[in-house]
């Protein structure tokens, strides 16, 4: 049994409260991070070039989202099987994200 299965009901090492707490922490980091990232990019777009506040906001937001990912990795995927954990993390996060971007690029016109 790897640490990957912590959210599984069969693993008694983690209770629902801590799982919910992790979810809230991720929401608190990822939501504002994404909003700040988009707002910073919008600032840069409105200004016509890379303004300092826009760049800083975008960087801050991106770092928050990346920190959210690191937190998720450390809590759920890090462990003895490090390589397997990294692969699983990428499969669960990066691949679906790429799929989403491709979907938008292919099917959504704006």
């Amino acid at each position: 049994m790897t640490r990957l299965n912590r959210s599984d009901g069969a693993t008694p090492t983690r209770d629902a409260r801590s799982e919910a707490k992790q979810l809230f922490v991720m929401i608190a980091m990822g939501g504002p991070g994404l909003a700040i990232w988009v707002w910073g990019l919008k600032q840069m777009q409105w200004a016509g070039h890379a303004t300092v506040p826009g760049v800083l906001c975008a960087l801050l937001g991106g770092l928050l989202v990346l920190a959210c990912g690191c937190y998720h990795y450390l809590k759920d995927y890090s462990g003895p099987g490090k390589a397997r954990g990294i692969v699983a993390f990428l499969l669960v996060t990066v691949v679906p994200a790429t799929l989403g971007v491709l979907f938008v690029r292919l099917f959504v016109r704006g």
Partner: protein
Amino acid sequence: MLHRHRALAATLLLAIALLPLALAVPAEHAGAHAAGHYEWPLEGRVTRGFTKPTGPYGEGGHQGLDIACASGAAVRSAGDGTVDWVGEVPRGRCVSISHPGGVRTVYLDLDRIDVCRGTRVAAGQTIGTVLGGRDVSSPEPHLHFDAYMNGVPVDPHVLFEGLSTDSFIRLIPVTAEPPGAVSASPSSKDDPGLWARVPRGVKALASGAVDSLKGALRLLAAGGIGFGRGAAHNARWVARQATALWSGSICPSMRATGRFFAGAWRNRFVKAVVAGLAAALAIVILVALAVVALGVSLLVGAIAAVLGAVACLVAAIVYAVCHPNGFGFATCFLRSLCAGGLAAGLVMSGGSLTTAFGAGWYELGILGTLKGALLSGCYSALFEAGTSYLFTGAVHLQKILVAFCVGAFSGAVARTLLKGIRSSTRLVEILSFCVGEGQAGLAGAGQTLAVLFDDSAVLMRGFIVTVRATAVRLGVKAAYLCFSGTLGAGINAVVCLATRKPITVSGMLAAFCTGAVMGVVALSFDVRGIGGMLERLSFFREGVGERLKSIAATLINKSLHKAVSNGFKGTFKKLFKEEGSE
């Protein structure tokens, strides 16, 4: 009896009235009964009369008479008595004779003295001759003649002419005494007087006491006056300082502060911040009430309060940015309140449901799936926004939202698949069972999918039933209402995105309120909603009626939803002055 008492009181009043007078003019009183026993010491004109001294040592007056005479004229004793002092004083040679009744006479500036101390003399007996040169109080030669009563200098005329005590009687309160009444007051001619009968020690004691009392009273009065003057002076100083402080510092500062706030209030961003803060305060209070009344978790309440307050401020500032003209404080406040309430409601409903059903979600693995979905959605939106800006220089919110939704869905699926393959979940069990039984091909796949969908349907039904039953059982109906309202708002947002309609505040609020109202309907009639209401009629319980019940319940629900939704939309559009439709 009454008259007797009045006479007694008059006597007492007489005594009290005479006491200070007696202290002030004892000689006159005493001289009254001394008249007729004295004679002038020599014949001559009085060149300078008696003047009462103003000081304690005789200064400021003339304590006697200057009787003009020729040098060498014989000086006679004014009355019977005993020489008690003979000697030299700065103004000349002097003889002092004590007479009965406390009277003493002094003869000054003599040349020859015929008596010595202790000599008893009779009235008219020669005691010496006048020199009359050294005493300069009168320009011509004279005898200086003094008289004292009990040590107090008096005018010597009283010795020779007497002093009528009728002048004292004028001080007595005159009352009409009835005829035959016995007067308690002694006769002034027969009785030497109350003061004369008082022993000398008592007199001195009384005099000292009165003097002490006078001094004390004078001191007290002076102290009181001084204290009052000092207090008044201090009060005037404090008042002056307070006036100067008010007019010099406080008033200008208050005026400057008022001008500053008045100037700042003209800025719409300041108004927006104030409106946002007020809305945030209201949200925090509401969340606190919800935490206390509904038993919401403290952590969830804190997160909801913080996010609600942030949403309030952000909404207020966004409103100020988007409305450079026609900025309204009330509208800004309402928008902030709605945004904060929406955010806080979302967090509280999600948090409450997570807390209430966390165990169930945990058992089902939903929390882990949600985490994966969230992270995948965030990454997807991040990539989409970044690449869009890099490639086109523009960022589209709709594309970002779609990317987030697709990424989240993909992430949830990926997480479920990964976890299922690894941990032998129900999906893997089904797949393994199908493979193990050798059912391959389309038939096997179809059967597997059928089982999977059926199982999912059971899962969803079980989830909904669990949500509703647990919500009612725990009494957290408010959480369920928030959940249903949030669900309505989310559906409204998805519909707007799908149909490319703008997402407005009024539309989101109307959807939230409609969802909440429908949640109330669903919770009514023993948590059976409209169906429960219809079941109360026996016609809808069996047969055709049971079939009609679901149709009627659906129609009623839809009509109710439509009416409530339209009503809320119209209200919020008017409230926020928004044009257009969802």
